[in-house]
């Protein structure tokens, strides 16, 4: 799928350089006379703002892959990439929830424990109590939402810092998970069931896999042209045809290559499809709905949002509910991978990796800036490092240090970008 930092809503504005003359021209004629110059201007301005979109992250991913491929030929093999594409899903789902929380400028430390709790709850209900799988899944997800909502309540209504509330949550939910797991501290469930299928089901029929790739690309093309037509009709600058085709072409290359490579091993994993669906849906939700706009507004200025009539407490609680739900969903994928619920699934590493993924992917720690696509990019980088190290036989301590270094680099980038934006904002001309 296309990886876009800001998406069409923003990118389509690229030609709108120098709005005053642009507005005059745009109103009169339908053609965009100097797209090249306008592009250069927009690109330069973004550089000044320190807004490079997803470019640095993509570059980092490419470098990571090239290094590991250089060190070990098996790294980019269909088999390894296929395993990678399923391994990222659990952590990635949790990271999507973290993106929501980071967007309002807060943090949720309980997601790792909530993910573990969700797996344990599902296993306990399904195996110990004999509840049907679908019901156990729904209860696990609702419990995640409720736990997140409870933490959100203490934060938004009582005024306890989110850091502390979710730190308490981290301990509490972890304790609850261990209690549910009982003395064996692990519960195995069916390898043929619904939850196990989440990560063991692959689509192999070319009609389905290539059909999905074609469908996604076509949908992107249609939406782009529709947007272009509407903007043109309203007399506003719009994206040149060439750019639409270039973007669509790039998207097609990425999706078809993914389908092809994964098809050479076991096929297109269901888990990856669900992950992409969650990312696309949450991205559209954040960028294209009034509620998503309120979440972003909260990250940009609580007071401004309040004065604009945003129900701050309600939005905050709902964001923690989203984070809790996605943590629970991620927990199910992690349990599914092992077909068992155990202490491992809720370990502290999950929390650290999820937060690191969101930040490495380009979501700002300072709130208001980011996209759920950063969860995919970030988790890809983190899992690639883990997978590459494992292939090379590097020990865990070194893995930790390298991941830590990558995280620090990402945060430094984030801080520098923020400083660049600030200094531009304070300049008085």
């Amino acid at each position, binding site marked *: 799928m296309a990886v876009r930092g800001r998406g069409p809503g923003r990118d389509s*504005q690229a030609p*709108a350089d120098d*709005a005053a003359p642009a507005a005059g021209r745009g109103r009169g004629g339908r053609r965009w006379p100097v797209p090249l110059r306008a592009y250069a201007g*927009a690109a330069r301005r973004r550089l000044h703002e320190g807004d490079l979109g997803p470019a640095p992250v993509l570059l980092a991913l490419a470098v990571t892959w090239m290094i590991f491929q250089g060190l070990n030929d098996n790294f980019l093999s269909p088999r390894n990439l296929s395993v990678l594409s399923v391994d990222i899903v659990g952590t990635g789902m949790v990271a999507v929830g973290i993106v929501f929380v980071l967007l309002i400028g807060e943090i949720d430390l309980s997601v790792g424990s909530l993910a573990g709790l969700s797996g344990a709850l599902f296993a306990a209900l399904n195996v110990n109590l004999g509840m049907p799988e679908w019901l156990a899944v729904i209860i696990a997800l609702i419990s995640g939402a409720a736990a997140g909502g409870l933490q959100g309540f203490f934060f938004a209504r009582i005024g306890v810092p989110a850091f502390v509330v979710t730190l308490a949550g981290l301990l509490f939910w972890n304790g609850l998970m261990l209690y549910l797991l009982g003395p064996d501290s692990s519960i195995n469930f069916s390898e043929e069931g619904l939850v196990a299928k989440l990560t063991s089901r692959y689509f192999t029929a070319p009609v389905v896999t290539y059909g999905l790739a074609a469908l996604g690309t076509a949908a992107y093309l249609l939406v782009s042209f529709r947007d272009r037509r509407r903007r043109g009709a309203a007399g506003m600058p719009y994206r040149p045809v060439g750019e639409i085709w270039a973007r669509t072409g790039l998207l097609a290359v990425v999706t078809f290559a993914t389908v092809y490579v994964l098809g050479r091993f076991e096929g297109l994993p269901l888990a990856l499809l669900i992950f992409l669906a969650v990312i696309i849906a949450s991205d559209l939700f954040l960028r294209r709905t009034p509620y998503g706009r309120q979440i972003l507004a909260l990250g*940009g200025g609580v007071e401004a949002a309040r004065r604009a009539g945003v129900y701050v407490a309600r939005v905050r609680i709902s964001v923690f509910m989203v984070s809790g739900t996605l943590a629970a969903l991620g927990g199910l994928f992690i349990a599914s991978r092992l077909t068992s619920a155990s202490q491992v699934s809720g370990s502290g590493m999950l929390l650290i990796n999820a937060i690191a993924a969101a930040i490495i992917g380009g979501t700002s720690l300072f709130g208001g*800036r980011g996209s759920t696509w950063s969860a995919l990019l970030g988790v890809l980088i983190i899992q690639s490092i883990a997978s590459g190290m494992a292939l090379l036989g590097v020990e865990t301590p070194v893995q930790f240090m390298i991941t830590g270094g990558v995280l620090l680099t990402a945060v430094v980038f984030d801080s520098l970008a923020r400083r660049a934006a600030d200094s*531009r*904002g*304070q300049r*008085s001309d």
Partner: protein
Amino acid sequence: MPQPLLALRGVSKRFAAVQALVDVELEIRAGEVVALVGDNAAGKSTLVKVISGVGPADKGVIEWQGGSVQIKRPQDAQVLGIATVYQDLAMCDNLDVVGNLFLGREIHRFGILDEVEMERRTRELLHTLSIRIPDVRVPLATLSGGQRQVVAITRSILGSPRLLLLDEPTASLGVEQTSQLLDLIESLRDRGLGVLLISHNMGDIKAVADRVAVLRLGRNNGLFDVPTTSQEQIISSITGAADNAVAHRASYPEEAWP
């Protein structure tokens, strides 16, 4: 004389032991810029909060177009058509100009934001007000102080208000930006809006205000027609010195004012 758009009659407000406003009278007509001046702690901000509904009055009557109204919440003021631009602006730095203008009143179709329509209206509004913003899709953080101020005012105009309250709009602006802002205030007045301008800057007041209302220690301390009043008269009314050393010292350049 036309009926006033907004009239305050005997408005008082008390914060614990401090009597912030005492029997304040104020009238603003449509198509008129009234400047509200006063020393620190004179009650200017308190008065703005009374009108904007953020801090309602304890006593007194507010009349809107001749009829008595209650302004208990910010929403009440909005419904009447009173828009306020606070000194701290309070905007979302991460959202673009369009996003900030429409925050809290987004245009959407079937729950999906209609970015095209919002951007079209933004451009239209900026165009009619002759405001130049290089790009309406850049995050607000990248705009200069003057541009942010202009966006804040444009935002308040979006709801087609009848009365605009501006709290120290020029306080943080340079010379060039200030003159642009004053142009904007004049063009709004010419479009028939009533404007209440709080300012410390005599130059600004002389430039755009039609009348000046002076507050001193929470009480009315004079109402002047700007064209026929000297700066010294206004200043002595602010300081409460009709004729003393302070009044004579007041021929300092305007920039010397806090």
